[in-house]
């Protein structure tokens, strides 16, 4: 009974969200979108960051393996999409120093194919990186993943015939819209909910709780860590690809530690091991990122004149992180999840053991 109600609520919520998205993206029933392109862009970024945050949470929160390699996989996805969906003419304009290697200079594929390739290639990198580093634990794992992300970046800077080096790539076709980003976020949420609540999800959490006990219970620890890591790399690749097509230009300097840190911030703020937490925190942080742009521009408050300080936003976020971890030391949600039952808590009687 309750179950049916909850399903109904969920369907209604999804429908409302879809209508809002349709309205924002294309206008509705002849009404033009009241949302300006800037707002729509922020909504796109929110959705992408939800997916990216969940992917990182799968490894860092649910499996307990502290990885700092996210930006590397995003870079792989971003470059894959850019090189696959740009027109040959646009490629020629970009690669004026060193020509792009054949046959990539002639290839152009549909966006969907590019996005899937981005995920698959990032997953392949995840497999190659994961094989050595997932044998490490704690700090060593964090440093090794960070190192690999940096290697990916340095390779991108230097393989000019493939990536255009430090110049980056410009005029990437802007296929990304709310349909793509919302689908990415929604499918990632769905995937995470299903995975985390499955037998595999329990195995991942068991590894987080106690690796030795997990092994003693017959869980192949390395295989399961790899599963989480490669899946996260796939999702990071897709997210990176969508982001590249949204922003329109990419360069290797974008994919440094601060990018990973920004996603990590969302995961930690929301709560390691909470899907709901990441969704909420990714939305808030992304929106604040934009709203707080003013703190980096010159300010005049009456007689006081403040020069613009680049990076001030990250200072604000770091302070926010400190405050949240002090007062809610496990993030906004801890490892709790949203459920409709929480809303009308009166019905929340102590549940029996009926599964």
């Amino acid at each position: 009974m309750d179950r049916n109600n909850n399903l109904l609520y969920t369907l209604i919520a999804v429908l409302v969200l879809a209508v809002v998205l349709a309205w924002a993206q294309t206008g509705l029933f002849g009404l033009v979108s009241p949302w300006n392109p800037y707002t729509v862009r922020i909504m796109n970024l929110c959705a992408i960051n939800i997916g990216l945050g969940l992917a990182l949470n799968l490894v860092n929160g649910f499996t307990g393996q502290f990885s700092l390699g996210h930006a590397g996989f995003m870079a792989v996805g971003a470059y894959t999409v850019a090189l696959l969906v740009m027109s040959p003419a646009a490629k020629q304009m970009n690669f004026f120093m060193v020509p792009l290697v054949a046959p990539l200079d002639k290839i152009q594929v549909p966006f969907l194919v590019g996005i899937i390739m981005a995920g698959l290639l990032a997953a392949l990198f995840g497999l190659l990186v994961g094989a050595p580093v997932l044998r490490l634990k704690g700090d060593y794992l964090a440093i090794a993943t960070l190192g690999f992300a940096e290697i990916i970046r340095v390779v991108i800077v230097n393989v000019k015939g493939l990536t255009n080096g430090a110049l980056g790539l410009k005029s990437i076709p802007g296929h990304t819209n709310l349909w793509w980003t919302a689908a990415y976020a929604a499918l990632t949420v769905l995937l995470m909910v299903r995975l985390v609540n499955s037998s595999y999800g329990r195995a991942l959490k068991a590894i987080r709780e106690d690796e030795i006990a997990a092994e003693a219970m017959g869980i192949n620890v390395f295989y399961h860590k790899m599963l989480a890591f490669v899946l996260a790399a796939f999702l990071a690749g897709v997210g990176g690809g969508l982001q590249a097509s949204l922003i329109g230009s990419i360069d290797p300097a974008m994919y440094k530690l601060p990018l990973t840190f920004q996603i990590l911030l969302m995961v930690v703020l929301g709560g390691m091991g909470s899907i709901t937490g990441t969704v909420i925190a990714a939305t808030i942080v992304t929106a604040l990122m934009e709203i707080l742009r003013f703190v980096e521009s010159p300010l005049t408050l009456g007689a006081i004149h403040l020069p613009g300080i680049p990076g001030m936003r990250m200072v604000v976020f770091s302070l926010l992180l400190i405050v949240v971890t002090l007062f809610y030391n496990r993030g906004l949600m801890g490892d709790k999840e949203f459920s409709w039952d929480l809303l009308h808590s009166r019905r929340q009687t102590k549940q029996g053991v009926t599964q």
Partner: protein
Amino acid sequence: MALLDLKEVTMRFGGLTAVNSFNLNLEKGELVGLIGPNGAGKTTVFNIITGVYRPTAGKVYLADEDITGFRPDVITKRGIARTFQNIRLFGSLTVLDNVLVAQHLRLGASPLEAVLGLGRYWGQEAKMHERALELLAAVELEAVANEQATSLPYGQQRRLEIARALATEPKVLLLDEPAAGMNPAETVDLMDFIQRIRREFGLTILLIEHQMRVVMGICERIIVLDYGQTIAEGPPAVIQRDSKVITAYLGVSADA
């Protein structure tokens, strides 16, 4: 012939020989006690059997298969389960999830089937739930199935560890000081419980225990370790009168 067979197993940590030329023959259905003063090497024997340590020398056989150096998860799949001296539950998971995790090794469905919720997966998941609840009922923990594992009192945590080990469907069960921290009433219950699960699940059990009452009460055979060496072996009545055992215990600790 023996179900679990350890041949001349030696474990050195640097200069320390924790286990020295240790032999063990566990016949199917036996309940054998492993005792000895602190630091005698008992837990190290468990760690060797379960693949946590690879022995410096010697072999471990399970049903005549050489399992020396196998990964711990592979050994568990072969049919050896254990509990830990210092309880190692999956703390933030529920009691039920702790038992479910231990059945994951027998799940046939792939991650894709699990995520997509394909037919085979749901059937297996439903069976796992049913089995988990049966096991929790067997250890009288079904009432706390949805509680967080670490919220349980000590005695219940020990029982949960045993239920979790049973969920892997072992042939051989290794119990590392299951009565530690239990009060006398709980200890008596535990003795009954161990004998009951041995019958019900057709188990072969190796038991490490400091409380002599437990070991002498339920084991058919006892092996005494001291400084990694077997100093005596035999039925409880013989061990109790063995002069070497008495010296070893009085020499090191008086809690026997």
